């Protein structure tokens, strides 16, 4: 259960981009399927941690990033859906990971100026 500290790191990054007096509508994060993050748990932790900050009420949009790999043996590009990391074309386990381990803050949207109390 490290979603709380992940949520904390997300808000620390976002705070650096929020000008004084502005509030945040939503925060979009990219979470790889191999990152070990449970999206529901991250959402919950985020909603708790933003209380009494400019992020209060902001929606957390979680973009799940699939596990993709390239087979080093036959050069096929694969989408890995099961825990078995093997090339669906040739069976090799010698894979180069292309995506799926990400954990990043992608973008945020601020409320329009003057709508602080909206």
């Amino acid at each position, binding site marked *: *259960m*490290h979603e709380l*500290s*992940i949520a904390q*790191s*997300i808000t*620390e*990054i*976002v705070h650096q*981009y929020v000008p004084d007096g502005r509030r945040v509508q939503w925060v979009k*994060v990219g979470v790889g399927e*191999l*990152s*070990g993050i449970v999206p529901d748990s991250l959402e919950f932790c985020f909603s708790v941690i933003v209380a009494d900050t400019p992020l209060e009420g902001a929606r957390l949009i979680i973009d799940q990033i699939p596990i993709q790999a390239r087979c080093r043996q036959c050069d096929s590009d694969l989408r890995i859906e099961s*825990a*078995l*990391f*093997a090339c669906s074309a040739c069976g090799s*386990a*010698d894979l180069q*990971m292309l995506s799926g*381990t*990400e*954990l*990043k*803050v*992608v*973008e*945020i*949207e*601020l*409320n*329009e100026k003057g709508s602080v109390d909206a």
Partner: protein
Amino acid sequence: MSVITIHRKVLDKNDEIARHNREVFRRHGALVLNVVSSPGAGKTSILERTIECLGGFLRIGVIEGDVQTDFDAQRVARYRVPVVQIITNGGCHLEARLVQDAMANLDLGRMDLLIIENVGNLVCPANYDLGEDMKVVVISTTEGEDKPLKYPGMFRNASILIINKIDLLPYLQFDIAALRRHALQINPALRVFETSCTTNAGIPEWCAWLKEQRLSVS
């Protein structure tokens, strides 16, 4: 619409401190292991056997990570090696910053090998680089053969797999070949050792390899 593009890694602060830790370790020529497992797989016992076996050849230091108590640090201190205990107070993993703080209490200049024992957990520590040279994942024969498939993130990130408690194999229905197969399926580059901290089986092989790695660092 006032959308701000950020595109930053959530853990970039941790990664930055980990990079700094790594530079400090390099400068001192210390080989650094980050040992992870589920609770009770035998991390501390492996540390003890490793210190017994290598203590005469290498100067070893230990950072112990636990949710509560300094019991593990007390166990390790009996072997007369410098040890620093980190108590995470509920935290399920070590972070680079905690290791950085602990490093201040260790004389790295007098250390060939630093072993960091992480909190027992196969999920959370996978995300946090501490600045180590390699992650060592320990699994015991009383756990399931399918563990690598259940925790692929950790097994992908590790360089070494130690299968511990092999002395119990006669009493268990544990398929060690299946475990190896599953682990190598997740990460074909894993180097596998089989050990028992009760009989000391496999410990000399593990330590001989570790000694070799240390020589290639300096």
